[in-house]
């Protein structure tokens, strides 16, 4: 799959393959994922929980460790293949050039240190500020940038003393402190109240514009993806099943899973909700051929559920489905 929006890619993921290995078997959790993120682009990676979205993100940052490992593929960033980069170089790239924020901010802070201390630590570590005083000043500025206006007070609070929304803002401040090119946001709003969700989404959009960052936005929530995405990649059972410009995919979903997904959530266009029948397959024992076949209403149409479907590009949207096989139906 190539970048659907064209232009020079900031990050190119090619055939990324991540596995969990234990004594008995090897389970593929990210199956040859291929996609690009352009400069100032927001790519929404959509899928149910357990579909491999987070694994994809962690694989890009190489934050996986045994028994999980990257078994193949490439991740190109500024002419370097991150999969093969030495650990030292990778570490200096983490946070500074590719930052990440997470779903439950409360679990992602050191509970024993104040928010300020943790900000200062990152600022000093990445040499964004020299000396503690300067770092504290910068930290207050950063907190202001994420709409935490009484930064001077927040600095001295412990993570368990502030609300989830404030903490998510603080985490964003932490992430953008070294001015990264790419921000990976893993379900950043899922744990928050709906009102705060949209504030955070707005904040991320603003920051994207103001700091000209790219964002890899991971969510299971189609409505959230609709609000932020330039590009959409839909993941099912470790595989990308549909990948294309957001407008196109949302307007005209091709893969039966994408269609079902869109039908299952409230949207301006859909009046009735249709939950997807059945359960996603166990990745340790995926069905042969098309992984969605057991739940697919259209599987009977092509009758080739037992063979792996090809990836077909239709109108600059890539789809992994027998329905679009040029040689087939």
């Amino acid at each position, binding site marked *: 799959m190539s970048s659907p929006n064209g232009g020079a890619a900031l990050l190119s993921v090619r055939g990324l393959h991540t596995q969990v290995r234990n004594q008995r078997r090897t389970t593929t959790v990210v199956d040859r994922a291929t996609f690009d993120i352009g400069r100032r682009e927001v790519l929404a990676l959509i899928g149910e929980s357990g579909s491999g979205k987070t694994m994809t993100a962690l694989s890009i940052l190489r934050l996986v460790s045994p028994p999980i490992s990257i078994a193949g593929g490439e991740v190109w960033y500024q002419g370097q293949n991150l999969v093969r980069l030495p650990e030292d170089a990778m570490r200096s790239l983490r*946070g500074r050039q590719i*930052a990440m924020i*997470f779903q439950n901010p409360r*679990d992602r802070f050191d*509970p*024993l*240190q104040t928010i300020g201390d943790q900000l200062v630590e*990152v600022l000093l570590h990445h040499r964004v500020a020299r000396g503690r005083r300067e770092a504290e000043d910068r930290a207050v500025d950063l907190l202001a940038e994420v709409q935490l206006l009484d930064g001077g007070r927040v600095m001295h609070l412990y993570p*368990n003393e502030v609300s989830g929304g404030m903490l998510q803002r603080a985490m964003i401040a932490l992430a953008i402190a*070294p001015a990264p090119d790419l921000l990976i946001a893993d379900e950043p709003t899922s744990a928050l109240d709906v009102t705060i969700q949209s504030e955070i989404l707005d904040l991320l959009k603003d920051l994207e514009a103001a700091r000209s960052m790219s964002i890899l936005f991971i969510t299971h929530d189609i409505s959230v993806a609709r609000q932020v995405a330039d590009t959409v990649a839909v993941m099912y059972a470790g595989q990308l099943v549909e990948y294309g410009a957001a407008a196109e995919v949302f307007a005209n979903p091709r893969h039966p899973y994408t269609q079902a997904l869109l039908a299952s959530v409230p949207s301006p266009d859909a009046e009735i909700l249709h939950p997807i029948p059945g359960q996603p397959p166990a990745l340790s024992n995926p069905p042969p051929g098309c992984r969605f076949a057991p739940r697919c209403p259209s599987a009977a149409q092509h009758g080739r559920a037992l063979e792996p479907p090809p990836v077909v590009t239709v109108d600059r949207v890539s789809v992994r489905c027998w329905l679009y096989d040029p040689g087939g139906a």
Partner: protein
Amino acid sequence: MLSYATRRVLLLVPVLLGATVVVFGLIHLIPGDPAASLLGPNSTDAARASLRHSLGLDEPLPVQYGKWIWLVLHLDLGESIARRQPVSSIVWEAFQHTLVLAAMATLLANITGLFLGIVAATRQFGLGDRVSMAVAALGTAIPSYWLGLILVSILALKVQLFPTGGMTSAIDGGSPGDILWHLILPAIAAGAAPAGIVARTVRASVLEVLRLDFVQAMRARGLSERTILVRHILPNSFPAILTVMGLQAGYLIGGVAFVEVVFSWPGIGNLLFLSIGQRDYPVILGVMLFVSVIFVLLNLTVDLMHAALDPRVRTSIST
């Protein structure tokens, strides 16, 4: 924090009261006439009768207990049969020496335990883990009194690097350096088992913290492993480690007893050992009562430090 501390301190009262009941009970479990045991074989019948009376042994048990506790509250633990000195001063003297040894052993055990535990946790399932945990297992299995004998046999008698026993040199002894020189072998012998336990605890708590999500977030921030370990993982493991370290320090106050005997260290354990041989019951029971108080206070200190170190405990209690 303050109310938490107050509550913890108040909870001690029934526990300490119970401890006195246990010790009082033990006095009365001693077979034979306590007065005869307390006064020794050379005592006259009159002296025994007067002691029985002053101990109130001719009165109902609750009255006896009340009178005894009154004496205990005045730090009067009776008089040693063998030494004919107040038990309180004998015990206090010996306790200070035990404290020195227990402190040194605790220090050694904690440093070694921390080192082994961190090595093991950060190399989970690797060679470092296996070696560290094997050392820890050996440490906990080897009897301290046996290790003491082996150390004496090799390092004091064969190589003569260290003294064979005692706390000070007979000639010009007593300087801190001299005491330290006498401390090394007994502290190693006493500290081996706690070191093993601390190592296991450190490994488990560090692994537990390593499993926490914030560690991954720290990595995503680009922090180095060393920074994460030293500034975040260890402080977070520390409350659990501290609890075990405190327990081990408490254990050592009693547990150095065996080592004290092997090294003739003039502490509580040696005192207890001698008093056992001499059937010096007032000293034995005085030691138990005294040490239980110290032990309870030590546990309290550990709890309070735990609270002080962990803002979650602190705030959850202050709100």
